[in-house]
């Protein structure tokens, strides 16, 4: 948690206050994910419960459905604010990393490659963001 506070510009306050309606029930008292994180499309398991920390940060993710948007690497997409922050790449159960788009790699489902579901900047090798609104929780 200390590391998270140092690296993220706006560390999340206690989730009860920070989480938007809907995400409160997904976050435990320590700020971790209560439920497993799954691919919305194929159900592939991305994170086990407790593997990530809730955080807020404005990130631009290319739209999930438009291939052209993904190719543009951020020309169009959605600003997403709520994320699961993962500190070690090997905390993921299953995930895919795209080739570099600038200094960013996007995260996709390891099985069906739906995405991007998340964001990783090569300048910060210990931070992997998974957008809450782009995954399912179980």
């Amino acid at each position, binding site marked *: 948690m200390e590391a998270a506070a140092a690296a993220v510009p706006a560390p999340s306050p206690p989730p009860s206050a920070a989480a938007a309606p809907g995400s409160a029930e997904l976050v435990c008292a320590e700020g971790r994910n209560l439920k497993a994180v799954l691919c919305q499309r194929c159900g592939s398991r991305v994170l086990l419960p407790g*593997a990530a920390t809730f955080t807020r940060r404005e990130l631009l993710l290319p739209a999930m459905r438009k291939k052209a948007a993904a190719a543009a690497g951020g020309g169009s997409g959605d600003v997403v604010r709520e994320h699961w922050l993962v500190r070690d790449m*090997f905390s*993921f159960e299953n995930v895919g990393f795209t080739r570099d788009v600038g200094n960013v790699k996007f995260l996709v489902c390891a099985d069906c490659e739906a995405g991007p579901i998340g964001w990783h900047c*090569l300048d910060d090798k210990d931070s992997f963001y998974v957008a809450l609104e782009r995954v399912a929780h179980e």
Partner: protein
Amino acid sequence: MEPGSGLPQRRVGGGGLDLGAGSPALSGGQSRRRKQPPRPADFKLQVIIIGSRGVGKTSLMERFTDDTFCEACKSTVGVDFKIKTVELRGKKIRLQIWDTAGQERFNSITSAYYRSAKGIILVYDITKKETFDDLPKWMKMIDKYASEDAELLLVGNKLDCEVDREITRQQGEKFAQQITGMRFCEASAKDNFNVDEIFLKLVDDILKKMPLDVIRNELSNSILSLQPEPEIPPELPPPRPHVRCC
């Protein structure tokens, strides 16, 4: 020299590589609400997939545990590598699978890929003789750069295109037999025939070979970093003995 020892070392969080890691037979519920992350992986292994252009390397990576095979939802940017988790012999193993598509020229794949790989899957296309004829060139790269104890698996892909077959199963077997410790199989990434088995077999072979202390001490350093690597490593490992050369 240890494989990958020249690479930046990853921070190992949460006692990542301690076998067992104090979480015996985790059955879910209990540890979920604690601060500790869930049971970490017991092993982390890097696997690379190499072979000439068009043999289906990317498809092999996708088809592992994938039952969709959907072109439509693929990111146009392309996937660089994947983290996949498998359970084998009661151990939880994280695979980092690198697909080298787009770097098919023999000398263009960074030697760092080879050096840190515990498993190497060499793929050819049973319907394209030239991809089979290329195998000795790939073996030269393996001999030059890969760790000597890396597990090798030769895969004849596109078994679904049997009518166009140019390379017999016996030819593939014969090639693999000439190389110490190399396994062989044919597969179809399109039909998912043998694909899961390929990875599981390879992982099993890797685990069987490893004493536990090696696993603990070495694997944390064997993972390829995301940071760009220099094309030419500062120090090349000595060439492998020629036992594998055909």
